């Protein structure tokens, strides 16, 4: 039986206005995913221009946290075109076959002092690994800001195969730094 319009409209309006259904949204222009690695001892940095995230995080209830982050690997910015073309190729990210890297996690742990960690699955280039991402949280205006860094071992994800697997030239450890600004309030579930 169809719900009479006159009743449906106020109910829906109420549902969207209610804080119980409020959503946290990524503020892309303030968020960033950067990385740093060493080449022959020389620090090199870069970032990903495009990534999306669905995040829910309430510092008061970290165990309810949920995160899904997707990074478009082809959007890499190394400040050097030759390098950018190379890392999209097969030995590095193989962007044609694996355009996105993703992290999926749920249930953060509070470590005290504004520090947290979130365990989840990191998938890059067809390899999935369990990782624990550390982060700190602070309030900046209306936004919640979470940031941290994870030391990733590139060879565990087959990033840089063949001649590039030589870690004397490009170090195995890549420090991935993330900072996300979230607008809105966490859902009360």
């Amino acid at each position, binding site marked *: 039986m169809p719900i009479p319009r006159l009743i449906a409209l106020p109910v829906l309006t109420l549902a969207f206005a209610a804080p119980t259904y409020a959503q946290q949204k990524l503020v892309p222009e303030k968020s960033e995913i950067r990385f740093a690695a060493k080449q*022959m*001892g*020389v620090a090199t940095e870069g970032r990903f221009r495009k990534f999306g995230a669905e995040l829910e995080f309430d510092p008061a209830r970290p165990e309810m946290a949920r995160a899904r982050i997707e990074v478009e690997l082809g959007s890499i910015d190394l400040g*050097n075109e030759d390098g950018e073309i190379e890392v999209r190729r097969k030995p590095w990210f193989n962007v044609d076959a694996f355009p996105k890297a993703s992290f999926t996690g749920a249930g953060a742990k509070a470590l005290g002092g504004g520090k947290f960690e979130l365990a989840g699955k990191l998938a890059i280039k067809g390899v999935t690994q369990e990782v624990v991402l550390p982060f700190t949280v602070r309030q900046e205006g209306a936004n919640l800001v979470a940031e941290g860094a994870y030391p990733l071992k590139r060879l565990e994800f087959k990033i840089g195969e063949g*001649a590039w697997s030589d870690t004397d030239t*490009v170090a195995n450890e890549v420090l991935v730094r993330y900072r996300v600004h979230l607008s809105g309030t966490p859902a009360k579930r």
Partner: protein
Amino acid sequence: MMVARRYYSWPAVALHWMAALLIIGGFALGLSMVDLPFSPQRIKYYSWHKWIGITVWLLAVLRLTWRLLSPPPLLLPMPAWQRRAAVATHHLLYALMLLIPISGWLYSSAAGVSVVYLGVLSLPDLVEANKPLAAQLKLVHKTLNVTLLLLVLMHIAAALKHHLFDRDATLARMIPFLRS
């Protein structure tokens, strides 16, 4: 009173030939690395090239210091124009050994790549990353190197001329086993 020496002292000889080998090696590496595709080999060659350049600079400073402590032998008798040419060439060679590594370091900084000597010692960036400036510095580095190449060829030709045609001891001053 100090007696003027006939030959270069052994530290001067050792430093000269070390610098010669490094300059030739660094030059060859520089020529070959620019055409390499983006690869680990390219990254290695560029790093080695930079390390060699810094070493040549250090050797030049060391050699100039040594010249003050232990003056080189006087030039052998030769026409005044040759004397002037020899002195000018030596001055220019020293100037280039000091300037070329700095121009390379400047170029590397402008290209956004820091120089880490021997992969361990981080040198400061001399300028901020700047693509148009990098292109200009690349040209400066190249031009100075072409000048160095011409001067080195002249230096070698003059040494051989003294040894083979003038049959004097000029070359023996720098090569101990030529001394009789």
